[in-house]
Structures are given as C-alpha cells and as structure tokens.
C-alpha cells in the first residue's frame, strides 16, 4: 500500500497550513494595511522559511482587492443579497486579507516557489471598500460623492456585535457613491463605498 509516506506528507501539509494560517493572522493584515498606504509597487518580507510578497497590479491602484477581496458580481438584483462576491482565489492565505487591499499575493513556501495566481477575472475590477464583517454600517462623517480619499483611509465602520470593524479604502480614489445607508445591516464582503480611480498625476509604479 502507498500508505507509508502519507502520515509524513500529512504532517508536512499540516505544518505548512499552520504556518500559513499564522502568517495570515499575525503578519498579513498589518502588512497589507501598510502596503496599501505606501507608494511601493511590490513588497516582500521573509519570516523564517516563508516569504510573503505583495504586488500591486500593473493597473496600479485600480482594483477591488486584486482577486482576494470579493468582487461584486450581482445576483438577479436581489436587494437583500447585495455585493455577491466571487470565490476566494487563494485558500487560507487569500481569505486572510478580509479588508481587501492586497494585490495578488502568493505565499512562497520553503524551496517551492509558486507563481502568483491570476485572479481569474478578466473584466476591469471595480474599486470599492467592502464590508469587513456582518453587522450595522456607519459611514464616517463627511464621506460623500466627489471626495478624494487615500488608500488606507477609514471610510466608516461596521458594528459586529458591538465591536467596530473598520471599512478601509483599498486605494487612492474619489468617492463615487456610498452604497449603504447609515445604520443599514450589511453582510461580509458587501460593497459599501464605491470609488473612482484617482486621476493619475504620476506614472504608474511597478515592482
């Protein structure tokens, strides 16, 4: 039987998964937040035998989370299920960046370089802040169409059982529309503030 090497493989796989989970929980959120507000095109950090690389898409800044965060796909115009998201593209690592500022990301394991995966969406991504959780939405005071925001700016919050979770701008842009009313019940991944890309003053940066 081919059972013999299986426990080893399982152990390795489990260790890898745990390592990825830890990175996703402890390192990624702050990294993504910092990257989102920086001018960098690409950022790579090493943690033990693991490398995490964040890369801004070529179409710099104009993304709704680069395939990690939900993209709005709509579902027959049902108002009660807004902001239908696409599938998470990259397992644990991918799903760890709930606030949706990350560029396509690949965790590179020990000795096994993996190319960043394509996000699988051909159409130009829409730029939007999405809900970090299920609860009641409150927009930050003064947020209105036409307002210029920077990536990383807090545009409001969602109250999840009394705990405020920040709604963050994924990139620089101009507020096109606030998609939810003050105090409205929103679900995880729902589009809350739609942005138009900021006019490009400088050439797009690349890694």
């Amino acid at each position, binding site marked *: 039987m081919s059972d013999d090497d299986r426990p080893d493989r399982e152990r390795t796989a489990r260790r890898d998964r745990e390592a990825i989970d830890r990175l996703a929980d402890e390192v990624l959120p702050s990294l993504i937040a910092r990257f989102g507000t920086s001018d960098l095109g690409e950022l790579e950090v090493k943690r033990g035998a693991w490398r995490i690389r964040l890369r801004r898409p070529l179409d710099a800044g104009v993304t709704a989370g680069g395939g990690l965060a939900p993209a709005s796909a709509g579902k027959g115009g049902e108002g009660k299920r807004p902001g239908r998201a696409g599938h998470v593209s990259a397992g644990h690592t991918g799903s760890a960046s709930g606030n949706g500022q990350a560029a396509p990301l690949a965790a590179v394991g020990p000795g096994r370089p993996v190319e960043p995966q394509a996000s699988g969406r051909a159409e130009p991504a829409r730029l939007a802040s999405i809900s970090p959780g299920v*609860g009641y939405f409150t927009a930050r005071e003064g947020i209105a169409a036409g307002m210029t925001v920077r990536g990383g700016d807090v545009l409001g919050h969602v109250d999840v*059982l009394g705990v405020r979770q920040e709604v963050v701008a994924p990139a620089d842009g101009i507020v096109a529309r606030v998609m939810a009313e003050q105090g409205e019940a929103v679900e995880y991944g*729902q589009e809350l503030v739609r942005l138009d890309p900021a006019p490009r003053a400088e050439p797009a940066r690349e890694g």
Partner: protein
Amino acid sequence: MFERILIANRGEIALRILRACRSLGVGAVVAYSEADRETRAVRLADEAICIGPAEAKRSYLSAPAILSAAIVTGCDAVHPGYGFLSEDDAFAEMTRAHGLAFIGPPPDVLERFASKAGTRQLLERHGLPIVPGSEGMLRDDEHALAEAERIGFPVLIKPSAGGGGRGMRMVRTPRELQQGLPICRSEARGAFGDDSLYLEKWLEENRHVEVQVIVDRYGNGVHVGERDCSVQRRHQKVVEESPTPALDEPARRVLNEGAIAAVVAAGYENVGTLEFLVDRDGRSYFIEINCRIQVEHPVTEMVSGIDMVAEQIRIAAGEPLGYSQADVQLRGHAIEFRINAEDVAHDFRPQAGTVSAFVPPGGPGVRMDSHLYAGYEMPPYYDSLLGKLIVWGPDRPAAIARSKVALGELVVEGLITNIAFHRAILDNPAFVEGSFTTNLLDRVGSAAFVAGSARS
C-alpha cells in the same frame, strides 16, 4: 414558536434544517461563508447572509459573526446543525445573552454533559453500565496488576489527561502490563505533563450502537430506538442502520429504556444521542452523549416517521413533547450511506472540484439528503460529505436489496466518490449477516476490503 431561525451551518444539514423550518411555517435565514455562496441551501433560502470568508474560524466557527447575522436579519433563534459550534456551551450561553434561542440543549445542560468522564459518572449513577475500569488512578505497578486481574485482560492503559491515543496502550498479559506502564507513564508525562494512568477494559470485537432520545423542558422523554454505526473507518462512521442487527428485541428494549430513563433522570433536554459499545456477548457500555442532531438522524426518521429536526426546534421553543413512548412506533429497517467525495484507492483522500452530473436515485423507501446539483463546485475547506442516501424496507434483507438498486442508480460525476465502496460493503458477508464490528474495516484494510468484495 419562533418567527425566524438563523441556520448557522452548511452543506446538506443547512438544507435539511431549511426544509424543517419551512414545513413548520417558520422563517429561515441561511448564514454562509464566501466559499458557500452557490450552495443549494443559499439558493433555495428566502434570505441568506454572508458571514465571513471560507475559513471556518472566521465564519461558521465565529460566534460574533453568527450572532450579529442573526440580529441584523431579525432572527429569534439560531440552529447550529452538527459540528462547528453545535455543542459549544459558551456559544449557547452567548446566544442566550443576546436574546436569541439556541436550538439544542440549554447552556447549563450542555455544560453538565460537556465532560466525557463526568457524563459517564453521572449516567452510571442513573443506572447505565459503563466500560469497567480501575478504581481511580493507578498507585503503582502492584495496584495496576491487581486492578487488571479484577477487570480481566485485555485492558487498555489510559492517561488521565489528554487524548488522541498518546500514552494509551492495550495489553493482554501481566507481563505486557508491566512493560507498558513505564512507557505510558513517560508518554503521558511528555505529552500532558501528568503521568497518572488508569485502566479500562478492552472490548475487542465491539459494535457501536447509539440510542436516539427526545426530552422536552418538562421532563417528558421518549427514545426513538437505536442505530447501529459499526461500519467505521478510523472512527469515522460510513454506514448506519436501525434497528441494530447486534441485539435481539428484548436486549434492544433494555438498552433503549435504560438510556431514556437515565437521561431524563439526569436532566437532559432536547434531542440527543447516547453512544454505547456493545461487546461480543451483547453487553452494552455507555461511552458518551451527543447533545445535537447527528448526521445519521434520517435513519431514525425513516423507521419512526418523526421529524427529528422539527422536534429539536419545537422543544427549544418550549413546546411540550405531546406524545408518549407508546406513540412511538418503529417500523421496518433503514440504512444510511454517507456519500463522500473521497478517493478510496488513495487512502480515502478528500476530493474537491466541480460536480458535472448528479442524479439521485428513487423508488419506494429511498431518500437522498444532498446539497448537490450539476455544476456545484465542492470547496476544499470543509468536510467531504456530498450527501446521504437513506433506504427503508419492511425488513433488513428488503432494505439491503433496495439499497443495492439505489446505489446502482446514484450518479455523481466530476468527483471521485465512495459510492463503489458502499456497494462493496453491501456484498460483504459480515455486513449481510449483521456481524460487522467497528474494527473490521481497519483490520482488513479498506483497499483489501474493496478488492475482496470485487472478487466475490
């Protein structure tokens, strides 16, 4: 009765709960993770709400996400299904603290039955036999030997702390016992920082038999017969049936009546299952209680006609049971097959992918509980259960014959499944004569089992 129930689970059980809500005329909201957006319960639901990403820790296991979803959608109760948070007394308590009903036992009941050792002691006091073991912890080798002789070899050396097989060893002779004790002691010390050991009788060729009970808030309880879950692979149930072929009618009555009397006396509430090991001589030993709906509940529904999920909901809403033991009529024989996306040829490796075709079987007594549809994408994040095929017949041979027909009709394409494995089980002489034991599949090796069945 409740107005709206939040269904905090996924897959086939989310669909099952949705059906129960609808037949009771209660509203339902399906809570789902991003990976389950296209699942059947979500599509069928009047309302569904995304509670988090694929990762269960941040969706189906996140109490704040689930309770927040229940509140914002105007629900007054939460059904946890099985697995995830279904037996978590802290979650049940938190649910109540937010003014919502938890569909299951109340938090204090869950807490009372949370410890396995404590539950065994509690129910032993109320008359249930438990697996014989040493009195307290082993003081020294001499004490161990005396206790082992009293219980009778073979015995299992078990550490007081922890679990998962560490520091555990089955010994057949006094000599093996003497050799085993220091090993277990050091393993237990290393793994749990506590080297206290005790002994338990080793039940060699045992069967897994469990009793379904329903108890209302007012102390009215009935049993709904037993299920035999002896077809297991590495402690995972594969096939379940009712009644058990291991016991005759009088023995089953003793088992079932003892179980319901004990849990009612111990103050249990709602739907629950008491698990027993039954040895070669037909003696049963209580091992643990499951305070939730179980995967295999349809087996009981098929022989009793009682909707177990609806009963759970009714009792959680404070309704009285409304019928007595004499009203519970068990008829015929039912068998359930867990249809999993797993590759039997490669150590039952779980599969993920897209279901290209799904055709459930039909005919008298055939029921398929499944969330599948053609085009469904099976996510890799959760368990590999694709659905359950449950077949009823007026007696066991009839149920087996119908099962063969049904398994022959069932089509799931696009994923590797264990359907052929189930057909092999139905051809196995031990299964046909009703003498399957819990260690049979693992002892023979599942691959050899399939090969053996294919030849015959």
